[in-house]
């Protein structure tokens, strides 16, 4: 199992007046090469779950093993070191830095790894070719179309050959055509062996045929219909 959560809960501001129980007793297993959709309205806790799978913060209690590593009790620094080797992130609205060029945006995750410029370029060029954005390499990311932006975001999530791709509401601000395109690319990635977790409440995403499993999150726990 690439992702193994058992009894995971997350409480913000524990012991304070503003304590929030975001997740309670989550059990979830995702095997390598599968594509899972976390479905639920905003505020249901699916972003928190995605952040725990994405090694952004550890769970308050329970066991969470991502790509073979226990996250509980791990300091922030080691979550980061683990995250950059295993998780490729695709954000809502893609979170591309608009003043940087497309090439620089794609290679951002490689800078703290100490990858020299030539190798960075080489890796980015392969991906840009694959996603047909090579001609935009030197453009500021703020000046390219929505479809190209989406492919830049996907390329950035793949640049360090991470085995897991996490997408947070990727289609929320896209039109139907681009949403379809996004899901098709995800489907292709799945065939190359990537494990994909998408958090979304957009039918275009969770009703896509490539989705192996839909996990419904409601009030911080997995809802079994």
């Amino acid at each position: 199992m690439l992702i193994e959560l058992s009894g995971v809960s997350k409480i913000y501001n524990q012991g304070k007046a503003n304590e929030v129980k975001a997740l309670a007793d989550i059990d979830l297993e995702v095997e390598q090469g599968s594509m899972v959709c976390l479905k639920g309205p905003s505020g249901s806790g699916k972003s928190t779950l995605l952040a725990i799978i994405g090694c952004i913060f550890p769970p308050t209690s329970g066991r969470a093993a991502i790509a073979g590593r226990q996250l509980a009790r791990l300091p922030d620094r080691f979550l980061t070191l683990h995250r950059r080797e295993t998780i490729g992130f695709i954000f809502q609205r893609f979170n591309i830095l608009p003043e940087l060029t497309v090439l620089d945006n794609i290679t951002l995750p490689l800078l703290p790894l100490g990858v020299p410029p030539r190798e960075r370029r080489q890796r980015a060029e392969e991906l840009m070719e694959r996603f047909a954005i090579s001609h935009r390499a030197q453009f500021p990311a703020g000046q390219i179309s929505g479809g190209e932006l989406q492919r830049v975001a996907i390329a950035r999530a793949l640049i360090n050959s991470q085995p897991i791709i996490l997408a947070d509401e990727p289609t929320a601000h896209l039109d139907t055509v681009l949403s379809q395109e996004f899901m098709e690319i995800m489907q292709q990635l799945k065939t190359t062996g990537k494990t994909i977790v998408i958090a979304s409440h957009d039918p275009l995403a969770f009703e896509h045929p490539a989705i192996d499993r839909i996990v419904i999150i409601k009030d911080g726990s997995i809802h079994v219909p």
Partner: protein
Amino acid sequence: MAQRNLEKQLNILDYALSSLWRRRLKSLSLLLVFAAVIFLLASFQMVTQALTDKARQVLVYTPEITLQKMSVGRQEAIPLAYREQLAGIFGIRRVVPRIWGYYFDEVRLANYTVMGMELGEMPEGARLDTTLSGGAMPGTDERGRVVIGQSIKKALALEGRTTFSLFRPDLSLTSFEVSGEFSPDTDIMTNDLIVMGLAEARDLFAIPAGLVTDLCVYVANPTEIETIAKKISATLPSVRVLTRPQIQKTYQVVFGWRSGFGSICLLTALAAFVILAWDKASGLSPEERREIAILKVLGWETSDILAVRFWESVLVSGLACLAGMTAAYIHVVYFAAALFRPVLMGWSVLRPELHLAPRIEVGNILLILAFTVLPYLAATVIPAWRSATVPADSALGG
């Protein structure tokens, strides 16, 4: 491992450069203000240092030991007869009498320094000939001939004439003929100087025969200055013994004091700048917050972001230093420190036109770095840390 670390720092440096460039308006304004502060401090430092150097250079021409008679705590004329009492002290090369004083020219409202000496008696090497830019020192038997400094030439408005007159204390006139002038290189000492024979000076100030203002003692071996000075002091207890190293130290203290005082004034400018830097660094815009959160999700550690901020500070301060110090050098060398002249050289009515040549030394550069870059780095470290600890999850929506 080490290779990776180096590559990583280079990558981060690269990112810091591009980040500064993206915020070029902010960076540039900070850089300019910083460069201006460094310019002020560096100019001040360079001027003081160049002046100290210059004074030392010129002091080469002063005698190793100067003797003055003190009475009631004030200086008074010293009898020539004291020379005989010094004859027994071993190591003295020569004792030359001198009349040295100030002449206030009531017509031109200027102060001249007058030095009357038996020039023929001065030992080789101590004569002032080498400082002349034209003409010659008056000979032993030539009467009424003088050598003048640059600003005296201007004050007297000679324009081709070679003679001028000055009043004696009884308001009768005595005339002089210019036989040479001092070079502008030694302006700091010779600018307002008139050198004449001992007899002319005695005549001009109406000093009785047998008295002079001071006795110049030339010593054969410079390492014996202190010993000889002590012996003279023991032989002639009523005489003030000034040695050249002592005069040099006095200059150093005065220059150091002035420079220190100036630095304190400039520290206010520095403090203002540091507050500005702190303010600029701590105001984190939503775009910057978002950028940092994205970088962190993409696998940048807190220490990586701190390194970006560190390199940004180093780049800004390095460039500001380069610009500020270059400007200061130009200001001091080509504009003779026009901004600070009134503060640093308030001792003479005639303002010498200076040609300053500061030395560039590691120590001085380090001093300026300590005054400017270190406070700047210290002021930006806490804001940098605040920005580096923006949590990664703030990049996630919903």
